């Protein structure tokens, strides 16, 4: 049985061929490379250390077709998902396909490009960096994106340029007759001392089955700075496997915050690679799951040079029979002295059936570093609930407030007001369910 499983590839779960679709030479080359890797790489099973805890049934029990064959519904009015701060800095992708009408880009500082990849394949930055930053070994998902994408987001911020308005990359997914796959792609190139805020959002408009496999690549030159918020609100039937990766040159700062609310299966593998000295980065996460949702974060903070600073606060709230998994790797190379790295995973378990696996993993080969980590799994403290209840709050309301308070810290790091507000609403929705 297991031998048969070993031979499955990603293509086993795809109906039809994943043919190179890129219209430019550079994208086609990546398509072909991805296709080759896909054919030769077995689909992960629970025998693989990094996939030990996760049930991939949501993917393997389905066969996904391309969006073109899926019979997708029209998108309709989605203006309620537009951010007031980003009314002129928004790109919209519907089921992974660029939608120019719903997008709105104007008033950008001189030289800044926020556009779709297919229209920018001649840009030097696309030629030099697209597909060069991802380095997921024995992986089937990044190669799947490589093989299948033909468009995506391209953001280029020139030297010494600051984009004040947050850039909103809105991926929406509609209902469809068949389960389909989408491969959103994003390339960000921040030149020396540039700065911007990216809000990457994934929203399922219906409750259908689809497979969302985004790859985002951030190339950060000397002194550049990015605040990257990722909000995953996919359909509760969807599977979402993402590969966000950032490569940091000297003095670069990259702060990412991933919020997981949707999807039946979420596997997130953020990686930040220190490519020079004195960088500063954040890989925070907030997971709020219930029902039979699975949310798995496997992150790597890869310190390869001296004088880096990094921070990871990963918080999970788990209700019903949901399952949260965290594996946070901190690598510090032999000569990477004076690294200051901090990792904390805090889990709040609200039900008897919920499950949490957590595994901090520090591999440190330098001897003069400051690295700390901690993981906690807890329930709401009875004393806290009683304290609030003794003031007159119902038990339900007391628990809601405490969960809200637990999540608040992560929400407050969004820095964009409308995003904080929408997340607070989501937290209230999560804690204030009908079945109380």
């Amino acid at each position, binding site marked *: 049985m297991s031998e048969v499983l070993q031979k499955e590839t990603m293509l086993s779960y795809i109906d039809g061929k994943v043919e190179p679709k890129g219209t430019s030479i550079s994208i086609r080359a990546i398509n072909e490379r991805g296709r080759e890797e896909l054919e030769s790489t077995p689909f992960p099973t629970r025998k693989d250390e990094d996939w030990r805890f996760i049930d991939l049934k949501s993917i393997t029990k389905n066969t996904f077709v391309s969006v073109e064959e899926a019979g997708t519904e029209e998108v309709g009015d989605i203006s309620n998902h537009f951010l007031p701060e980003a009314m002129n800095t928004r790109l919209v992708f519907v089921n992974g396909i660029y939608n120019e009408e719903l997008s709105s880009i104007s008033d950008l500082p001189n030289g800044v490009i926020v556009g779709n990849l297919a229209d920018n394949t001649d840009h030097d930055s696309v030629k030099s960096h697209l597909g060069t930053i991802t380095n997921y070994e024995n992986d089937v998902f990044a190669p799947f994106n490589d093989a299948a994408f033909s468009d995506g987001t391209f953001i280029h911020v020139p030297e010494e340029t600051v984009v004040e308005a947050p850039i909103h990359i809105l991926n929406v997914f509609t209902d469809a007759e068949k389960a389909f796959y989408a491969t959103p792609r994003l390339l960000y190139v921040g030149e020396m001392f540039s700065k911007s805020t990216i809000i990457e959002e994934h929203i399922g408009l219906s409750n259908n089955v689809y497979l969302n496999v985004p790859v985002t690549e951030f190339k950060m030159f000397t002194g550049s700075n990015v605040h990257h918020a990722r909000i995953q609100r996919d359909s509760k039937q969807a599977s979402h496997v993402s590969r966000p990766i950032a490569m940091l040159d000297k003095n670069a700062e990259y702060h990412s915050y991933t919020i997981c609310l949707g999807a039946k299966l979420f596997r997130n593998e953020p990686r930040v690679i220190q490519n020079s000295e004195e960088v500063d980065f954040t890989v925070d996460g907030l997971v709020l799951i219930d029902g039979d949702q699975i949310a798995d974060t496997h992150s790597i903070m890869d310190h390869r040079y001296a004088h880096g600073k990094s921070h990871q606060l990963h918080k999970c709230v788990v209700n019903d029979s949901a399952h949260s998994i965290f594996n946070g790797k901190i690598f510090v190379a032999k000569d990477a002295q004076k690294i200051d790295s901090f990792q904390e995973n805090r889990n709040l378990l609200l039900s008897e059936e919920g499950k949490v696996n957590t595994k901090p993993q520090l591999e440190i080969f330098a001897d003069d570093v400051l690295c700390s980590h901690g993981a906690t799994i807890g329930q709401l403290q009875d004393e806290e609930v009683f*304290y609030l209840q003794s003031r007159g709050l119902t038990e339900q*309301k007391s628990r809601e*407030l405490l969960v809200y308070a637990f999540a608040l810290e992560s929400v407050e790091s969004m820095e964009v007001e409308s995003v904080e507000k929408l997340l607070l609403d989501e937290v209230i929705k999560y804690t204030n369910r009908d079945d109380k």
Partner: protein
Amino acid sequence: MLEIKNLHAVVEGEDIEILKGVNLKVNAGEIHAIMGPNGSGKSTLSKVVSGHPEYEVTEGQILFEGEDITELDADERAHLGLFLAFQYPVEVPGITNKTLLREAYNTIARANEREELDPLEFEDYLESKLDVIEMKDEFLSRSINTGFSGGEKKKNEIFQMAVLDPKLSFLDETDSGLDIDALKIVSDGVNKIAGPEKAMVLITHYQRLLNYIKPDFVHIMMGGKIIKTGDFSLAEQLEAHGYDELQKEFSLNGAQ
């Protein structure tokens, strides 16, 4: 107002009885003090009366204004007008004092079919209560008890009591850990809140609180029971001779 009849209680799921037949009657306008050595069951009594789920009442009754509240949840008791000032106020990071108090105030108002206050009205109402305990208004926007000093936490309990305006309050060792200045402020606050419609039960180990808040009755609790009741002179007697003498007397009576 409050009548406790032959109250027995255990820690939920355990056999060890902590309250072994407590009887106590508190009328409106009265201030009672319950004194006793560590482990006598004083704090447990206050928790059981306010509905802590950790304890199970195995025998007896708690009546509040004639209604049997023995089986009510803590929030339902609060709605009726009961309040517990905690010995160890709980830190709740992420929720401000203001948020908690508005939620609590309005929940109690709803339960009693009184009008709720909107955020602005509530703000004014809160401001008007700050004086009771000489509290700075920056406290309102801080997370509940988070990073507060021991004294600040105790003051915050009395402030909450002032805002929620309960009929009957249990103050569980509110004096412990307070320096003399803080003790005066806290006692002043309690005295301002006290009145003919209210009742207070002060639980304390020492007499010093009672120098500032004069009780009408003093009860001595030992071994899970109230073994002696008297007036203020009983507290003075205790302060002079300690609990040992009483303990002897108690044992000689063969009550334990």
